[in-house]
Every structure is written in structure tokens, then in C-alpha cells.
């Protein structure tokens, strides 16, 4: 079940060289073939997840710890299902609401998890770089499930997988990324989802436009090979995919944005606005959505336009692929020792 399908032979180096990293901390710096390898690996799990019997025993006997230092429902659930469908013992640690947040405790927690001999640790933390800090202290593969405003690599991968699936279902063959135009709109400054998507999509040859008011646009963003826009209508012109980001409501009210309704006025994705994009343009959102603010319900709920539930589906498959690939060395998979 793990062997790459024969049609992919030659797309990337054999065995471990296809993805020669112990951890998945971010998508920055990954080569195009490494990203495509992970996407290809996820395809089998998309298939499996659509069966009635959704279970592979690949990771049987392994322990995966989901250590979430920041609240999460969707990502945690997605990782939990992914691990369980691969047959691993999955344990969730919710450290978000307790006092286990700062200080030595973070390193101590890492050492504790390590001493429990986890075979992979999935970490979400509210501070950029925190997951890397933990990864440096443990002996097993670490997956970043979101660190501060830095990266959320499995989200970037699942979004790429979602785009690829959508375009292939329209009958396009090969990789759709090269030459595609994707708009990412919203709070770019604070978004790790935006950063991981920018890294993945630009590496795969996509034209990425980012759109936000100046207060939510990070400095030097054009150095990441994207085109910044403040005018959403201009950004949408000719776009093939529109990714909306969640607006943190607590950031509204004066500091970054005057009000939710003013934000919607300039950056809300309505059907009328979407008409400015390329015909057949697709809409994505990492969830959870603020309906009626950054996205209207008639956009989000139209299956002909919206890939939002598809993203969730691809999320499980993508995380299964990442857990599989990163535990291959420990499992003694041929070519991965």
C-alpha cells in the first residue's frame, strides 16, 4: 500500500531521497519534487478514505502524540483521524487552556513526550518557532500543526492537493500549478496558513497574489515571490482560485480594521465580486469561516464554486501521507532506513 504508484516513478529520487527530512516543520525550502512526492503519497489515502472500510495497519504499534498548546478542533481532529486510520495509537494532549504555556515547561514537556517514546509528535503552539524548538529536543519525527504566525505546513499541502484534485476532476491532466493564478485574501500578516500556502504554491510555479489592507500586509512580502494588492477587485481579475483567510474578530474594532462591516465592504467575497475572477474560479477557506464577513454563505455553500469541505477531506489524507512518510525510517521501510 505504501509503494508509490508506478506512474510516478522518475518524478523524484528513490526511497528516502524523495523526502530526506526527519521532521515537517514548514514548507519553506522544500523542493518541488518533495512537495509533489507528498501530494502523490496522499492520493492512495484519498481513495481509502472514500471506502466504507477506512483502515490501514501501516502504523500499527506506533504511538503518535498530538500536543496542542493552542486551541484547535479541526486540525486536532484531522490528525487524530489520520493517525487512527493508519492504525497508530493516538494520544491527544491539550495544553492550551492550562498554565503549561511558557517557561521551561515547554522544553520540559518536550522531554517528557520524548521519554514516553512517541514515534511521532504533532505540535501546535502559539509562538513562531516553538515547534522547531521542541523538534531540536526530541528523537522522533515532529510535525508542525501550526506555530504562531510562521507555518502550517499540512494546511499548505492539503490546499495544494485540493487544487490538484479539483482541476483533475475538470479533466485536466498533469500538475495544474504552473501558470495558475491564486489569490490569498485576508489577514496575511498574522496568518501561518498564508505563509505555508505561499511557500508551497510559489515553489510549484503558481502565480500568487496576496490581498489585504496595509495594516494586515507583512513587510517585504513581495520578496516571497508574490504580488501584493490592497484592492480586492483588482486582485481577483482573472484569478483561478480564491483563498479567503479567517479574520480574527478580536483584531477588528479599530486596531487593524475599523469594523466587520467595513471589512466586508472592502474584502468580503460575495458572488458579485467573485464574478471578476476567471470563469469557473474556485473558492477555498481554511475554516472556521466568519460567514457574512470574509465570505458570503451563497459562495461558501455552492458546491460548484466552493472547495471548502473538500479541503477538510483532503486534510485527513494529506496528514496520513505525512505520518506515513515521516515514520518510514523508524518502521524500517525498504529504502528509508
Amino acid at each position, binding site marked *: 500500500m505504501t509503494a508509490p504508484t508506478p506512474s510516478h516513478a522518475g518524478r523524484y529520487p528513490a526511497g528516502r531521497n524523495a523526502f530526506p527530512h526527519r521532521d515537517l516543520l514548514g514548507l519553506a525550502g522544500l523542493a518541488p519534487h518533495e512537495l509533489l512526492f507528498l501530494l502523490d503519497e496522499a492520493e492512495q489515502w484519498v481513495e481509502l478514505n472514500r471506502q466504507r472500510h477506512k483502515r490501514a495497519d501501516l502504523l500499527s504499534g506506533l504511538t503518535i502524540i498530538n500536543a496542542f498548546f493552542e486551541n484547535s478542533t479541526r486540525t486536532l481532529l484531522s490528525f487524530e483521524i489520520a493517525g487512527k486510520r493508519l492504525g497508530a495509537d493516538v494520544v491527544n494532549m491539550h495544553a492550551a487552556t492550562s498554565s503549561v504555556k511558557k517557561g521551561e515547561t515547554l522544553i520540559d514537556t518536550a522531554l517528557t513526550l520524548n521519554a514516553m517514546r512517541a514515534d511521532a509528535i504533532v505540535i501546535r503552539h502559539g509562538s513562531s518557532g516553538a515547534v522547531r*524548538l521542541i523538534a531540536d529536543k526530541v528523537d522522533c519525527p515532529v510535525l508542525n500543526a501550526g506555530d504562531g504566525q510562521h507555518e502550517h505546513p499540512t494546511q499548505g499541502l492539503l490546499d495544494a492537493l485540493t487544487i490538484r484534485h479539483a482541476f483533475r476532476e475538470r479533466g485536466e491532466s498533469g500538475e495544474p500549478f504552473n501558470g495558475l493564478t491564486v489569490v490569498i485574501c485576508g489577514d496575511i500578516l498574522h496568518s501561518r496558513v498564508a505563509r505555508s500556502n505561499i511557500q508551497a504554491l510559489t515553489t510549484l510555479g503558481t502565480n500568487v497574489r496576496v490581498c489585504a489592507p496595509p495594516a494586515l500586509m507583512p513587510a517585504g512580502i513581495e520578496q516571497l515571490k508574490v504580488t501584493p494588492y490592497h484592492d480586492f477587485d483588482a486582485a481577483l481579475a482573472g484569478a483561478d482560485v480564491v483563498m479567503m483567510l479567517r479574520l480574527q474578530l478580536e483584531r477588528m474594532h479599530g486596531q487593524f480594521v475599523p469594523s466587520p462591516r467595513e471589512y466586508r465592504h472592502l474584502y468580503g467575497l460575495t458572488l458579485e465580486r467573485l464574478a471578476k475572477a476567471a470563469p469557473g474560479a474556485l473558492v477555498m477557506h481554511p475554516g472556521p469561516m466568519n460567514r457574512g464577513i470574509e465570505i458570503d454563505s451563497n459562495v461558501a455553500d455552492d458546491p460548484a464554486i466552493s472547495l471548502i469541505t473538500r479541503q477538510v477531506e483532503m486534510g485527513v489524507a494529506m496528514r496520513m501521507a505525512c505520518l506515513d512518510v515521516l515514520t518510514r525510517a523508524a518502521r524500517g521501510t525498504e529504502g528509508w532506513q
Partner: protein
Amino acid sequence: MTPAPLTIVNARLVLPRGEPVSGAIRMDGGQIVAVGPGVVPLQGDFTFDAKRQLVTPGLVDLGVFAIDKPAFHFGGITRAALMPDQGPPLDHPARVRFAAQSGKPGLWVHPLAAATRALEGNEIAEIALMRDAGAKAVATGREWIADSGTMLRLLQYCAMLGLVLVSHAEDGGLVGSAVATASEMATRLGLPSAPAGAEALAVARDVALAEMTGARLHIRQVTTAAALDLVRAAKRRGVAVTAGVSPAHFMLSDNALAGFRTFLRLSPPLRSEDDRRAVIAAIADGTIDTIASGHDPRGPEDKRLPFADAEPGMAGAETLLPMTLSLVRDEVIDLTRAFELLAATPARLLGVEAGTLTVGAEADVAVIDAERPWIVDSDKMAASAGNTPFDRQPVQGRVTALFKGGTQIV
């Protein structure tokens, strides 16, 4: 307790002016009594053979956050101006008096009085009482003073008392909770960042207020091209402003942040490569007057954290000298100017009779092997913590002997 007369012979003397000259320096009663090419030991003097090494004034470190004698002595520092950011802050005469005694005899600590009570930036502290308890200057601490009215009255008061005000120049409103300079690197890493202009904005205001009041303002760290331009222009107008910097800002730029290493979490944060080059140019043209360590040893409880959660600061006392000597090797400055930056000017700002090898000055003297190579190692520092941004970096220049008030301490 007065040390016996001592003469350091066979020295290459770094004097206030000119190239280093061969000669000797004689100390008696804790003071320098003779220095120069023709000086010879008198009958009964102890003699110390410098073996052609540099003999320089002991370093006067303007703005340290901890009294860390082993690190200061390793780095050739005989006097350190202690920032008021202590626990509790130096905002009370008794604490100032205690701090002023805390390093003797091997190290003289010159306390900097807190400009405002509890360093909160609101009420002006008892500066005159602290001056008379031993404070050598006044400092705003790690933060700037947000209220311009408070800053104006503070500068007027310092001017009246004849004390320099040492300020931290970052506009607090722009900085907020930032831990990096807004830039491509901060964006890539997802670190909270503030525009580099936060420094120029603060410098512009503080220079304007210094100009209005005639006060002597020392901006402890000026790290951006725009702020340095403001200082340069103010000096040209005759404003009594001086500027300092620490080696991190002429050695490193924010490119170094890529690994999220918290030893590089500094205040102000590391700047762009262009700003780094502007700092070097400002050292060369005299816009920058002092180089200080900002010595702030921080253990794992403050540093082994995610970048944004870590405390700012670096252990800098041991690397202050070699990093400054690298500017001499790169021909940015000459040796005389290096010790003006490291000793003479800081001593002048503090109003202490030290910092130069001149007759009548305190006999604070360092013997330096300027060429000796060594490797900075955060695991083997003399400092109470090894949070150096220069870990594993090969450097040159090491203190081989140190005299405080005519007594050998290293």
C-alpha cells in the same frame, strides 16, 4: 591599602592621541603618575613586562544590565555603568549607593539613576538624591518615555543637575510587542515586527527636546541609517547629543534570525544589512561616540523559549573588545579611536577621571594581545550565562592582564 608603585614596561601604549608608542606606564597611589616613551621604573617599583603587547585604558562599559565581574574582567572592563533596570529598579538613593559599592575593589560600578519611578515613564524619580548617592548619569531604562511632556521636564532637570540622560530610542507605540524589525526575514519567520522607523521617530523627538532644553542626551543604541542621519545632523547643529551602539548591531543583521535562535533576540532588534553598514559608517565618521556591551546574561529560563517569548539581551562583556578590534583590522577606525569609543568617551559622559592613559587619571589599565585568536563558546563563558550571538565565531584580541586602580586583578 594603597598598592605599591608599579611600572608596566615594554608596552605599546595606546594614548589619547596618535599611533601606539613604545614606552612604559608608571602607577602610584592608584593613579597614573607617568606614561610615555621615556618613562622608566623607579627604585623599588614592581615591574610588569608587557612584552610588546598593547597597553590601553581599562574599558568603561556604558550600560550593562548585570554586575558580572568575571565577564567584565575577561573583557578588560574596569568600570561598568549599571542600567537602572534591576530588581528592584535603581530609583532610590539607597539602592544607588549600594550598587555603587557592589563591585569594589576590582570593578567600579557607576549606577545610572532611573529617570522615572519604577521606570514606568510617568513620575520623575529623585534624581538629585541619587546623584549625591553616586549615580553618574540618568537612564530611561529598557523602554522609552512615551509622554513627551515628561521627557521635556526630565531633560530640563538633568540639564540643571549636570547629568547626561541615557535614553532608549524606540517609539513604544510602533514597537508594541514586536521582537524583530519589519522585513522579509520577520515576514518569513512570522515574528511580530515593527518598522525600523520606530527608532528614527524616537530619536527625532528626543533630539528635538534635547535641543530645546540644552540637555546632554546620550542615545544608548542607535542602530538604523535614518536615526544615525538625525544624530549626524543634530551634532552639526551643535546639539549636545551622543550616540552609542553595541557590537551585535555592527556585526550582525536580521538575516541571522533564520534559525529562531533566541540568543539573537535583542533590544533593539537586529536590523537590515543596509542598517548594519550604516552603523559601521557612523562609527567611522564619528556619529557614533561609544561602543558598549549591553551585557545582559540570561539563563535558559529566559532564553530556552520560543523566540517571541524569550527575554531580549546578550552576554556581551567578553566579546566587546575583540568585536571592536575587528573594526580596527578592517580599517574602519584606528586603535586610538577604538579606545575613545570603548573608554575615553564613556568616562567623559559619566564624568569620571578614567578612560585614558594620562597622568592623574585612575590607573585602570589593560594589557591586550590584539592578535591572539580564540573562539567564542557559549558553553565556556566567564559570564554568568552564555547567551552570546557570536557563539562559535572565531575572533582576535584578548586581555592578558588587567589593573584596577594600580592593582593587578587579572
